[in-house]
């Protein structure tokens, strides 16, 4: 890059290396990166690759807040960060953090005041504060929450408030670290549209993200970090098409896996497709005809299927494999404040069954899990475990039969080492030492934590802390396990580890329930899916049917997986989730294979 371009750069990083205190390995090594004004650069990579450290270096938080040894220079809008204070950079760089739980200021009594706080610090006149906050509340659909206390919001709502609080400050550069890790697909799509609007208005965006569909769709440039270094850099097509990409622990956009599967079945596509729309377009170039008039229809990449229908619940259950282990019988639950969170839910699970529960934030999924685990008692109806009503037991006694991994691992961890954490409940329950050791070793092995048993859990990344809590619950050896959002913030390696854990638990005969917003994960790894919306079960069907229930999917505000989006484009009927069937459908619609 020439000198003029450098002078005009929004961010210019030269030879940046950074090592945290007490760490033997640098978190960043020799980073050279220039971001032009108005550019959208996404930083991807496996967990621990240095993505958040790089983002914090751009905001000056590294090394001025998080201390360590830094070499190289970081310039933001021409200013060397080594010389200035962190506070001064507020006017130039807006920063949204990964954890929604600690992003509230702690002094604002309303969401409105939360948004106004940063503007007040910037000295914006009160009238301008009002107009900017009003506009941002409108744009982010936060008007109904304006008078609520930020502390009373859900994680997803807090994440929206945190992003809105930064967007309203209108800094020319936005650095955003995994803004949607706790959000459902609908809200994720809405959040990205907001960031895209800010980008369209000329703001520079640096995004750290695991959701590759969004990265591929919005980024001008993608930087892949591996072990603190820039391993790959280029347009989304260049980076995701590089065969090395997956080796660095990065998941590809789902359309690329479909493309690869189609190529294995003889289709020779003319180019790389990063989205289902692009893939459908390429298949049409091969002669495939879409459903209907034959015109290529726009396929929603990230949004839900919009069908204005009020669906009837769809329950298609296969016979259970033996006696039911978990029975939820017409259960309703109302919180003490009077808010009903679960309404007349009935379902049953057998031993060895692995079930996914999907639905929008606030649909009642977590409350249902707590009802099964015994943390909550049904207001009406009954939960039975192996034929016994949970009301016969204390919460702790139920929990010895039903393990529950919380959504936020920090709510569950309180020991100094991973080993102590996993062993804690076993010790408290008085298990003999030999049995404790056997269970702890097996749980650490299964979760990939064997070599981290002496580590302090709080020194580990959030994604690994999640595995610490999973190991703690696996060690309890309960007949039923409930996982709440285990995929949030996981990279490819984490996801593969999770898949292996779920398979092993099913093999051991455990009944496993997984609550998740990751529809690709659900479509590929669960035989049965329960869809919840508005406190009720909307569908309980084999997964191969679930995502074709358009009215249900629309009401639950979840995404259709890429596979179903593509199928819908070329076939009116429901063909399940078989890749061979999809290839047949596309071939029958006229596409030429090699």
């Amino acid at each position: 890059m020439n000198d003029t371009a450098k002078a005009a750069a929004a961010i210019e990083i030269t030879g940046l290396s950074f090592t945290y205190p007490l760490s033997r390995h640098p978190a960043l090594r020799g980073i050279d990166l220039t971001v032009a004004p108005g550019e959208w650069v996404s930083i991807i990579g496996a967990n621990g690759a240095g993505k958040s450290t790089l983002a914090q270096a751009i905001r000056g938080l590294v090394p001025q807040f998080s201390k360590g040894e830094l070499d190289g220079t970081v310039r933001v809008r021409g200013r060397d960060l080594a010389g200035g204070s962190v506070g001064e950079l507020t006017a130039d760089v807006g920063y949204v953090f990964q954890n929604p739980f600690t992003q509230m200021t702690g002094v604002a009594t309303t969401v409105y005041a939360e948004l106004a706080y940063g503007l007040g610090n910037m000295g914006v006149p009160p009238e301008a504060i009002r107009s900017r906050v009003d506009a941002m509340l409108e744009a982010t659909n936060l008007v109904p929450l304006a008078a609520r206390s930020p502390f009373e919001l859900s994680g997803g709502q807090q994440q929206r408030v945190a992003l809105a609080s930064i967007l309203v400050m209108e800094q020319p550069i936005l650095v955003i670290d995994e803004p949607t890790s706790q959000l459902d697909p609908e809200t994720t799509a809405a959040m990205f549209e907001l960031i895209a609007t800010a980008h369209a208005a000329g703001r520079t965006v640096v995004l750290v993200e695991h959701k590759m569909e969004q990265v591929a769709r919005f980024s001008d440039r993608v930087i892949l970090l591996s072990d603190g270094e820039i391993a790959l850099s280029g347009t989304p097509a260049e980076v995701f098409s590089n065969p090395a990409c997956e080796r660095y622990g990065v998941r590809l956009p789902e359309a690329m896996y479909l493309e690869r599967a189609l190529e294995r079945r003889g289709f020779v596509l003319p180019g790389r497709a990063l989205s289902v729309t692009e893939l459908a377009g390429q298949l049409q170039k091969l002669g495939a005809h879409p459903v209907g008039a034959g015109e290529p229809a726009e396929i929603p990449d990230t949004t839900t299927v919009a069908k204005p229908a009020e669906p009837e619940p769809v329950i298609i259950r296969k016979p259970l494999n033996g006696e039911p282990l978990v029975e939820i019988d017409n259960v309703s639950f109302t919180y003490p404040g009077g808010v009903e969170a679960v309404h007349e839910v009935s379902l049953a699970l057998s031993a060895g069954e692995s079930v996914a529960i999907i639905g929008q934030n606030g649909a009642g999924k977590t409350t249902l899990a707590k009802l099964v685990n015994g943390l909550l008692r049904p207001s009406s109806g009954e939960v039975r475990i192996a034929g016994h009503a949970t009301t016969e037991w204390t919460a702790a006694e139920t929990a010895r039969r039903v393990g529950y991994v919380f959504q936020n691992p920090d709510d569950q961890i309180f020991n100094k080492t991973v080993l102590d954490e996993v062993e804690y409940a076993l010790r408290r329950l008085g298990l003999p030492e030999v049995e404790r050791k056997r269970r702890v070793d097996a749980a650490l092995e299964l979760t990939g934590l064997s070599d981290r048993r002496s580590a302090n859990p709080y020194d580990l990344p959030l994604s690994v802390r999640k595995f610490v809590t999973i190991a703690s619950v696996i060690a309890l050896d309960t007949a039923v396990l409930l996982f709440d959002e285990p995929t949030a913030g996981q990279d490819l390696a984490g996801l593969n580890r999770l898949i292996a854990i779920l398979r092993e638990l099913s093999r051991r005969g455990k009944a496993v329930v997984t609550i998740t917003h990751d529809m690709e994960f659900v479509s590929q790894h669960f035989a049965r899916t329960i869809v919840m919306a508005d406190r009720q079960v909307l569908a309980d069907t084999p997964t191969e049917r679930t995502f074709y229930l358009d009215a249900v999917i629309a009401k639950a505000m979840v995404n259709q997986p890429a596979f179903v989006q593509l199928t819908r484009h070329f076939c009116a009927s429901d063909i399940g989730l078989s890749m061979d069937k999809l290839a047949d459908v596309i071939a029958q619609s006229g596409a030429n294979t090699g």
Partner: protein
Amino acid sequence: MYEPVAPIGNAIQRANPLVVCCLVVCCLVAGLFIGPKYLLVFLPLSALLVAYAGYLKRYLLLLAAVMLPTVTLMFVLQLLANEGGAVYWQWWIIRLTEVGLGNAIRYTARFITIGSAVFTIACLVRLPRFTRALEQWGINPKVTYVLQSTVLIIPEMKKRADVIMDAQRARGIETDANLKVRMKALIPAAAPLILSALTSVEERALSLEARGMTLPGKRTALLQVPDSIVDKVVCVLAILACVAVIVAIQSGWWQP
């Protein structure tokens, strides 16, 4: 559209919270010197003011729930623990004496004086208006942040403690049986509560940096607390009156 700064119709609610605090604290200090008789004036007066402001129910609830049991216990203990002077009543080993009654009245009156002043402030002063008024008087926003966040974080810590107890129950550990079981559960819950509070403080400090907490320059706010010269004069007069009462009592000129 939501109105962030709701109009305040009530003169007491509208008053500068620092002036309200100053007046109540001056009354409190004077009351400690005046003695129990002071309460005969202050209690009805504070109840009237709180009622005018619209918070009488809260005030009476605080008095009944917090003050009454504490004061009763304190009165009985002082009454029975001190002996001397005339004996008014005796049964078995219990003696009600002149000194015991005097001490009981004196100490409980002091406690009520302090408690009623605190409750009056709690009912009449809203925290955001109080901290904003402090900032308008030139107090560093970092100081007001610490004050405000400390108060607001208490219910948050309570919620957090509940979540951690839930986490223990979710691992099969009894937390709500007998007292011994509860204590055993409470001790390990303290560690994650403190740990997570410390982690949250660090992460929240980063979030505050992102919101320009340490940005140099002039600050603005939607909330503007009325702050006139009259307010300052009232405060000065209240302090002078308080000093005058103390001097009068200490010099023996006035014996309440």
